[in-house]
């Protein structure tokens, strides 16, 4: 493993970042960090740690430890600094002053510098390349969470406006049974059922539209119309039709997912070219043989596009639909009631669960897509 200097760039970003770290640390060391009157020298470990951080940051420019060991030390010191800032500020909520923000900026710039260095690491083994490729987005996400934590606590942002990630985390950990019940009600029942029915029926409809020409003119505009219906208007009607429990939410999801799937599948079925269809004709292939052996495989990239779009639409639809009448369980129900009770950390916990579930759902479908359309130029590349 070696590191190479970034060259041929108009602005030498790592150098700018390194000197920015030094400048911010200097500002931090010589100004007040907490109200009413607390300097960084009153918290010696923070002062020492940030001094080391400045040196580790600027070592490249000063010309020593220009290797991956130095980079790792930089990463380690950055992590310790961030940890010290987070723990210190929790004792001085809302009291942060100029020096503290300077030190925060220094730590943030140092983490950016570390990722810059990481990105140009050259490794020979594919495993470590893979680890680095995973580490970069992970570090990015972690630094956003840390910044969020420090800013919200340091500036004393009211909890109702934006709770700190640690508070959301605590709420997540202590409310697992409620969150799990909500997840089951909304995701496992409404979303999955609605998604399966919506995508499945749209697929069958697309085949019919393709087979029966008058449906293309009749059904497609109706599908278009249905997709344009506002969910806010449809959801209460579905509650009246299908009752308070999850079937009405599933119905909303069906309405939301139907049209993207229909349009994409119809487009996909038309994707095979004339030569391929002529080929099937010379084999005297019948309609179903051509459908299964040529047109459906050809349509798969389109179909998976719709499945991916729908995976996120379905979750949004189910959560919003729960605002219009529901039993006392469900992610949308919890969000609407906890907002009313000013329990914003619970709302954020539900949002976190929804984001995680949505991303996983999308990820699973994207994985299946890779396996099914391995032959497509966009995948095999």
């Amino acid at each position, binding site marked *: 493993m070696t590191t190479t200097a970034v060259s041929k760039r108009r602005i030498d970003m790592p150098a700018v970042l390194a000197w920015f770290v030094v400048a911010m640390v200097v500002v931090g060391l010589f100004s007040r960090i907490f109200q009413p009157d607390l300097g960084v020298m009153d918290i010696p470990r923070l002062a020492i740690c940030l001094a080391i951080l400045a040196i580790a940051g600027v070592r490249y420019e000063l010309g020593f430890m220009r290797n991956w060991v130095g980079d790792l030390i930089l990463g380690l010191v950055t992590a310790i600094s961030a940890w010290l800032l987070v723990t210190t500020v929790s004792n001085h909520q809302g009291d942060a002053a100029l020096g503290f923000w300077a030190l925060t900026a220094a730590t943030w710039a140092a983490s950016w510098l570390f990722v810059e260095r990481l990105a140009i690491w050259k490794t020979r083994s594919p495993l470590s390349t893979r680890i680095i490729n995973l580490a970069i987005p992970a570090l990015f996400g972690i630094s956003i969470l840390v910044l969020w934590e420090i800013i919200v606590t340091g500036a004393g942002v009211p909890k109702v406006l934006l709770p700190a990630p640690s508070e959301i985390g605590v709420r997540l950990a202590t409310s697992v049974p409620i969150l799990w019940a909500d997840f089951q009600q909304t995701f496992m029942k409404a979303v999955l059922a609605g998604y399966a029915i919506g995508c499945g029926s749209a697929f069958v409809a697309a085949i019919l539209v393709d087979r029966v020409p008058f449906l293309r003119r009749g059904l497609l505009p109706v599908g278009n119309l249905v997709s344009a219906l506002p969910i806010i208007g449809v959801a209460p009607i579905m509650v009246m039709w299908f009752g308070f429990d999850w079937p009405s939410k599933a119905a909303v999801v069906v309405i939301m997912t139907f049209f993207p799937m229909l349009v994409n599948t119809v487009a996909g079925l038309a994707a095979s070219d004339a*030569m*391929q269809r*002529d*080929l*099937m*004709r*010379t*084999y*005297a*292939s019948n309609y179903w*043989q051509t459908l299964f*052996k*040529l047109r459906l*495989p050809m349509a798969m990239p389109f179909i998976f596009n719709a499945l991916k779009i729908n995976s996120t639409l379905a979750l949004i639809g189910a959560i919003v639909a729960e605002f219009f009448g529901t039993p006392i369980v469900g992610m949308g129900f919890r969000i609407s009631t906890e907002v009313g009770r000013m329990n914003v950390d619970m709302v954020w916990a539900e949002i976190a669960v929804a984001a995680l579930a949505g991303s996983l759902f999308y990820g699973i479908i994207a994985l299946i897509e890779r396996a099914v*359309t*391995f*032959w*497509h*130029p966009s995948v*095999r590349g």
Partner: protein
Amino acid sequence: MTALASAKDTGMVETTISASPNRVIDIDNLSLTFQTNDGPVHALSDIDLKIDEGDFVSFIGPSGCGKTTLLRVIADLEQPTAGSITVNGVSPQEARLNRAYGYVFQAAALYPWRTIAKNVALPLEIMGLSRAEQKERIARNMELVNLAGFEKKYPWQLSGGMQQRASIARALAVEPDLLLMDEPFGALDEIVRDHLNEQLLQLWAKTNKTVVFVTHSIPEAVFLSSKIVVLCPRPGRIYDVIESNLPRERNLDIRESPEFLKIAHRVRDGLRAGHSYED
């Protein structure tokens, strides 16, 4: 008749094959007119053509002369607007439903989600052959086009020439009476094309199939064919039919021989004469 006159000039003999010919394709007074927004386009006009079993017939002509259209009419991919055509004594549609055709297109048109072996198996699956029969035919035809060992590869992992060979294997696997080839080597470079031409001749000798081959390359047409049909455009019609007196066993060296050059010359004359009016 310019065609007959020029045949006499060059001293070419019209009948060469003495074995009793079994008629495969009989085209009589056939015309095809496409109706377009700019008025009717006469793609084919008054085509008369007989093709016998075991013939290697090339259609040659400039772009727009209807050579591909004529091949597509034979394959029942286009419908003639006048005249008659029979294939094996029945209509092209019946012949198609009897799986009389192996069609090789300008591009390989292999399905990228199927391996080479699976691509060759495609028509066999449609025909509903047994697994064992499929396996046997795949192995035999992959061997025939020198692709043994590439069964598990995907089309996009092979070169253009190999892809086109795979598509020939796929056409042969049907065991058709007629192999129809529409500029199959048009997209390949000359070295690969020469090589595949030689292989195609060997294949023809081995299988004794009737081949109809569309090309716009004079050397390719003369090298491969037992009968060369020269077409000319606007309206698409037959200008000359040349029976080749070259031996069936040929290699690339034959292209230097005087007989070869004579035939090539007559083809070139035909193309030039058919093209010389209007523009």
